[in-house]
């Protein structure tokens, strides 16, 4: 409009835009779900950045304490489970002068003898048969059992056929899974920043989920590894491939997915919507 300042014109445009969504008695006309999206505001950008980078910084700052906690947990669990293995520690350094220690299970890796191979073979065959007996509605479980059997069969085959020694020690297994768990935990704030904090959830809930997820992994990762140690000590290295490939890092990732799905099922922040639609943003 001639004579109007650009600021006044902009304000007018904004008011007009708001009118498009004003319904009966001042209510909001929600756009159809096909048209909703998110608006990239300064608030959204800054809170996402702070939560993501702040979360990562907090995690890195707490790494030494986390390492100490895991060390303590391993020592207690060894006695509780009657593992009877020496627990050592290994110091790692990250750029920026961050140093932390991880527990090390310093023991030999029990290898399967003929009896164990037979037992493993029979168990695998039984699982394979079971997968055919399950009703049709358990099809995914049938498939999973067959995958499990396939991996276990590959391990049996290796120990029967291979003339080379098994290339992994229990010590390596523990180290890899603990380190991978730490990487996943380090990624949590960043990945949540990209995929969760962009949604209209209250700030405290975003923070709460980050903390809950990190706490859960901080407890789960070492306990899961301890369970692996217990199983390998009881069942020999023949269970290591299955544990490593199916019940290690993959479980950490699915815990992340489960928490993420749970968080997105929460309601939005009061007074905010996941709309307005970007198509109307000028």
């Amino acid at each position: 409009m001639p004579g109007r300042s650009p600021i006044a014109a902009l304000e007018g445009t904004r008011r007009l835009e708001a009118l498009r969504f004003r319904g009966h008695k001042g209510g909001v006309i929600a756009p159809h779900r096909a048209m909703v999206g998110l608006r990239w505001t300064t608030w959204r950008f800054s809170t996402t950045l702070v939560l993501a980078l702040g979360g990562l910084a907090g995690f890195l700052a707490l790494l030494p304490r986390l390492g100490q906690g895991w060390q303590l947990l391993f020592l207690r669990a060894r006695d509780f489970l009657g593992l009877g293995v020496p627990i050592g520690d290994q110091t790692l350094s990250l750029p920026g002068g961050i140093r932390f220690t991880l527990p090390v299970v310093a023991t030999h890796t029990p290898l399967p003898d003929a009896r164990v191979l037979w037992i493993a073979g029979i168990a695998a065959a039984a699982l394979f048969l079971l997968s055919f007996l399950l009703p049709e509605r358990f099809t995914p479980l049938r498939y999973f059992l067959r995958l499990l059997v396939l991996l276990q069969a590959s391990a049996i085959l290796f120990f029967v056929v291979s003339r080379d020694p098994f290339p992994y020690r229990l010590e390596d297994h523990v180290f890899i899974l603990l380190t991978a768990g730490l990487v996943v935990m380090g990624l949590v704030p960043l990945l949540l920043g990209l995929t969760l904090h962009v949604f209209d959830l209250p700030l405290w809930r975003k923070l709460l989920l980050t903390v809950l997820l990190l706490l859960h992994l901080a407890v789960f990762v070492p306990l899961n590894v301890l369970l692996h140690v217990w199983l390998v000590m009881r069942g020999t290295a023949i269970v290591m491939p299955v544990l490593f490939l199916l019940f290690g890092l993959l479980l950490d990732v699915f815990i992340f997915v489960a928490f993420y799905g749970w968080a997105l099922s929460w309601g939005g922040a009061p007074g905010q919507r996941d709309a307005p639609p970007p198509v109307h943003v000028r």
Partner: protein
Amino acid sequence: MMLLLVIPLYLIIGVMVIYTVRHYCFTLNRLFGRHRQPYVDIGSAAWPRIAVFIPCHNEEKVVGHMLDALLAGDYPAEQLAIIPIDDRSRDGTRGILDGYAARFPGRVRPFHRDGGKPGKAAALRDASLHAEGADADIHLVFDADYLPGRGLLKQLVAPFFDIEVGAVMGRVVPINVSKSLLTRLLDLERTGGYQVDQQARMNLGLIPQYGGTVGGVRRSALLAVGGWSDDTLAEDTDMTFRLVLAGWDVAYQNRSECYEEVPETWPSRIAQIKRWARGHNQSLARHWWALLKRPAHVSRAKVADGLLLLCVYVVGPLLVIGWGLALTLYYLGVQLAPGLLVIFAVAMYSTLGNFAAFFEVAAGARLDGSRGRLRLLPFLIIGFLVSLVSVSWATLVQLLTSWRRGNNHQWEKTERFRAPGMAVPNGEGEP
């Protein structure tokens, strides 16, 4: 020797990384990008003549609901011909269709087939050339179990006012969501596929896929590219790429929703996805080279997107091969890089890669406003596992039998679960 294992593994990882990046790009675009919803608001216009084709093979359980829904629509009756194609049905389909034709003369015009190649593609080809009313400007296609809303036909026709649009696709929404865990998971998958994937393609000017139902083609475009192919299991994907290669646009209308019945049992789902995989792979074999040569009117972005879309069912078998290679290298004790670095890389890849598809689905469901469903998100892995095995097996069998030629066409359709005469579900109360 090691290189023979390591190089293919790196290549496969490279492919997976590309698909992962694609997932994130599409999802972020859908969330924050500028939407393209062409002509969705058009309510009154000089509506063109349209023919709605409904391929049927033993569809007595559902086809009546479909015809009722179409007849209740607001598309001008004088401009609309409903053409159910009865392809040698052995149940009561023929009688139902003839009954509707008698009650709605001129509006419902069944096209009965008793000979020729069986199958949806061949039925469509025949009907689009020979059925009474098939000379309409726009040909829409619906499967017999769909339940179009009152205004859907207008919404699907509106994008054709753009003379460059050769095909239009609407959004498919499951109606039997609450039947089982499988139907709930399929609902989540569909949400990701349509609400996010297809809309992002539309926004970015890439290649939204015409999906063979809840959509249609411009008749002149159809004739220009030689009509429906009757020797493919995925005439929809085939048509998408033939149109794109011939210079036509494919439009996606996220607002144009139509209910469908998703498989309620795992065997039915497995049969469905195997059929999709084989059909899609046929299209890959037919069109990848023509697409790669990049006709002048096809942008580089469209070529890249088109190739990724064509290869989507090859990813499953590739992943299986990748796992096989990784397992072999695991037993050989081969380290691909220094210890800590490889742990870091694998953990990053596993986290970001595995999460990408979940992010897409979750974003779609959140935008849909149906948040409760998202608690099932981790369970999607079981659907992925079944799909992975099924698609890989179908692709392997297809590769091994591809040398066989001849007329082995048959109707391959998804089992219907609706009881005949049952009240049409209205979608209310679905989670």
